[in-house]
Structures are given as structure tokens and as C-alpha cells.
């Protein structure tokens, strides 16, 4: 689907901290937001140049952290207005499509039965459905290289675990509500874990080159234990992890 210019955006700029302003483009999560968010990201980076300290895009917003030794609050507002005037959405087809191999197995994906049961389908059907969609990367956050992706089919949507796990293994692929994601690093977490990938997301992020960028698409592909192990995957069951 090629984005059109017909959708209007009404930008709001909000004070967020001493030296950060929030650019709010939308109020709801839609895949079609990304063409605008990415366009705004590019325009803000270009216009702020060395005045920019950090720019954190998310589902509906961009947080602009600027250097207040170079520009003051009012000048920063003017720079944002300049960057966003006449903004047109980017072509989201330009985002990369990533093929992510996943070993879906209860030993490394303990919530496979739970999510399948809630959806009223078999585990095999759940795996098929989870693989049968190109998920949009909405934002990076939570951990280096962690991509928030969606939107998961409503039937598969499952709320976070009541008690988060103390240690979710690196590579774990999970679902929370209508989102799906991969844990790049071992960390506490409350997502419903379906399987594990051997793709080293953290190593990419550590080099400053995350595998996923907002606007990219991700397609999961079920692989066997043998393929997972051959690709360097760690088969230690989730429960046995410290």
C-alpha cells in the first residue's frame, strides 16, 4: 500500500523537559503512521543538525532532545516548525523486509499452549498464523535493538503475564496484546513467549547498526531444532535459566 498525502496530520509540540520537546503527530497506533513518523525523523535530523542530541521516534511521537547551549527553547520550537512545514510521508515500501527464523517449541516458548488456547486454535495453527504476517516495526526501545512490532491478529492478542518472568532468554519471541517483539538480551519481562530466534539482535545494536529500524517489516519463519542449533541458537529451556 502506497501512502497517500490525503491523510492530514495535525502536529502538536509539547514541552517535555528542560531541553526536550515532544512532537505529537497522531493519537492512535496505525501502521500508516510510520510513513509520517519516518519523514518527520529525517526532516528533524536534517534541520537540527549538530544542535540535536537525541531523537527518539515512537508510535505516534518523536522526542527531540536538543542542545540548549546552542539554541534556546523558542529557537528549538522554530526549528521544529521549520522541519515539519510541508512535510510529506515517505514511501514505506522502502523499509527492509527481514526474515527471522524462529524455533517455536514449548521448552523455549512456554506460552505457546496458553496463546493457542485463548485463540481457540492448535499450537501448529498459532505458529502458522504468527508467521503469516509482515509485522511493522513501530519503535525501538526497552533494550538495545528491541523492536516493538505489530499489529498481531486480534485473535492472538494476549495480555502480559500477571507476574513478569525474572529472566527472559535472549532471542525470545513474544506477544503482548497486539504487539510482538524479540528480546535482544536476557532481561525481566512479561510478554507471552512463543519461541526463540538465533539472530543476534544485541550484537547488531551494540555496533550502532540495529537490524531493525522503524518502518521495516519483519516476517517470522518456523525452523526445526536442528536448524536453530546449526545457526548457533541456545536450546536451554526457559525454566532452567537462572
Amino acid at each position, binding site marked *: 500500500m502506497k501512502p497517500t498525502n490525503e491523510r492530514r496530520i495535525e502536529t502538536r509540540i509539547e*514541552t517535555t523537559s*528542560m531541553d*526536550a520537546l515532544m512532537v505529537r503527530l497522531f493519537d492512535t497506533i496505525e501502521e500508516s503512521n510510520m510513513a509520517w513518523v519516518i519523514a518527520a525523523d529525517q526532516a528533524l535530523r536534517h534541520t537540527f543538525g549538530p544542535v540535536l542530541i537525541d531523537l*527518539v521516534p*515512537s508510535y*505516534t511521537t518523536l522526542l527531540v532532545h536538543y542542545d540548549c547551549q546552542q539554541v534556546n527553547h523558542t529557537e528549538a520550537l522554530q526549528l521544529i516548525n521549520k522541519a515539519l512545514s510541508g512535510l510529506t510521508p515517505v514511501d514505506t515500501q522502502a523499509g527492509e523486509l527481514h526474515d527471522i527464523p524462529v524455533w517455536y517449541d514449548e521448552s523455549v516458548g512456554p506460552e505457546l499452549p496458553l496463546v493457542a488456547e485463548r485463540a481457540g486454535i492448535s499450537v501448529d495453527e498459532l505458529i502458522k498464523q504468527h508467521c503469516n504476517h509482515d509485522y511493522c516495526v513501530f519503535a*525501538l526501545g526497552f533494550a*538495545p535493538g528491541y523492536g516493538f512490532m505489530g499489529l498481531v491478529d486480534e485473535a492472538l492478542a494476549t495480555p502480559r503475564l500477571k507476574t513478569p518472568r525474572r529472566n527472559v532468554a535472549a532471542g525470545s519471541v513474544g506477544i503482548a496484546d497486539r504487539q510482538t517483539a524479540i528480546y535482544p538480551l536476557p*532481561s525481566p519481562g512479561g510478554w507471552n513467549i512463543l519461541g526463540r530466534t538465533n539472530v543476534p539482535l544485541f550484537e547488531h545494536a551494540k555496533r550502532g547498526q540495529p537490524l531493525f529500524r522503524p518502518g521495516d517489516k519483519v516476517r517470522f519463519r518456523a525452523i526445526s531444532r536442528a536448524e536453530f542449533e546449526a545457526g548457533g541458537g541456545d536450546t536451554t529451556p526457559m525454566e532452567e535459566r537462572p
Partner: protein
Amino acid sequence: MSQVAMHQVQQGLMVKQTGPLALIQDAGRFGVGHLGVTQGGAADWISFRWANWLLGNALNSAALEIVMGGGLSFETESEVRLALAGADLDAQLNGKPLAPNSSFKLLPGQRLVFRQPRHGLRAYLAFPGGLNAPEVLGSRSCTAREQLGGLHEDGRPLKAGDRLTWKGSAPAVRRIAEGQGPRMPISGCHLPIVLGSQIASFNGRTLFQAFNQPWKVDNRADRMGVRLTGPALRGSLTGIISEGIPLGAVQVPPDGQPIVLMNDRQTIGGYPRLGALTPMACATLAQCLPGTEVWLTPVSASQAQDDYRQQLTAWHSR
């Protein structure tokens, strides 16, 4: 390259015993928030800068952030001048008390010990020219949760047996003038906060309470966030669509008890916020022991920036 390498061979500071937490920190990681990488950096950046200033270092040179003390001790392999700023952690040099906010000479055979907090929570120990540590994503700051930075490039805090080396050899000997330098917070201190847009979603009565009575610093406090306890803040929002989180953001989860998000915060998050503490207020809060009472005091972004620029001149005008 040889000069730095030679110093590494000649001199070192050995960690003899660890305390609760000691981390290599510099100013932090910038320009990487969009990768999901946290900012990190010295939590009390003002004391950190004073520590470096005392030795004539570049102000953001890598130094040690020492929390609590708790028996952390060092011995040196060769004579070295170090600088200490920030909290008074009852530091002793061979059993003799060391005044914070000054530099001192450490000789082989002497032992440097950090015992327990007397004023403040975090002390900064600076080294000639700054500590040697691998740079990851533009910083030497150590973030355990992200396995980034530090001595071994894996985010691990300092442990017994670690050997610290530094870049320089001839530090300046500077003294902080009377009335200048870091001030440790006392109960009843004010934390300037720039109010944010979600302020309008909070219930009026609880909002009044937020700014008209003190909050207590909870013991659930670390480099990610500091929880404040007091009357529960209520509002129309329980969660928002996740968005970028600036330093000092005061987020209010469903239990109504605010959490101030500090240097190691997640880059995006979904709780409504009152606003964000200024960087100076964050430095103050980083030194508050649990039980300290603090007031949230609204300030405009412009005023906060003026105060910030004023603070930065402290190190330029000498």
C-alpha cells in the same frame, strides 16, 4: 600509541574489596536513544565534573561513581593523585579521614577505603586524564542491564581484583573555593520540575498535593529510577502510547506513586507524566538517601535553561 600503553604497564589501582556498587561513568551515551540504548552517565553530573576539575581533566573524563561505600577499598601500585567529590562516604586513607571535594596523593602500600554515607549517596573518584576503558557507542559509561561499557565492555560493576589504569600522568592540583563545589541535599530541599503536557490529565486535588507537600525518597531507587512516596496521584490516564522519555521524567504508574526516571531509564515508556526534573534537580536527587523529603517546584523550561547555563560557567570561570 606507546605512551598510553606504557602508563598502563607502569601504574594501576587495584580493587581489594567491593562495596554495594561502583561503576565507571562519563557523561553518558548520546545520539543512540533511537537504537533503544539508554543514556547512562554520572547520575550526579555536577559532583562528577568537580572531581575531574580538581585534577584539571576534561570535565567529562571517565571516573568512578561509588554508591554508599560499604567497604570498597583500593591499593595503588605507584604514587598517584586522585580527586574525590560529591557524597561524604566516610572515606579513609590508611585510617585517616579524607575530606570530599579535594584531591589527594595515594602511595603504594596505603589503603583507600569508602565506609558508609554520612552526607549524600554517590561519591566520584577521578583519575589523572580519566580512566582507561573501552568506548562503546561513544561512551565508557557502564550499564549492567544493557551489558554495555565498563572495564570489560560487558557492563559489569567493579569487582575485587579489577585493575584500574588512567590516561594522564601529571594532574593539576586545584582547590575548590569556599562556598563553591557540590552541595549535598538536606531534607526539605526543592527539586525544580518543568511541567509536561499530561499534567492536565491529573485530578485537581491530587495535583495540588503533588506540589504543596513534601515527597519522601523511597528505598526503591537506583540508576533507572527513584520512587517517591506520598499521597496517591490520580488522573484520567492509566497508560499512554509509549513515547520517548527525557531525563528526569516524573512518571505516574497506576499506584499513583511517582517515579523519577534517571540516567539508566528505558528510552520509551507508557505512563503519564507530571513533567521532568531539571538536570540540576536530577543531580540533587541522585544524592538523596531514602527517607529524604523533597518538594517538587515548577519552573519554566526557559528559566531552567538559564540556571543550567549558569551552572556550566562554574567550571569555566576558573
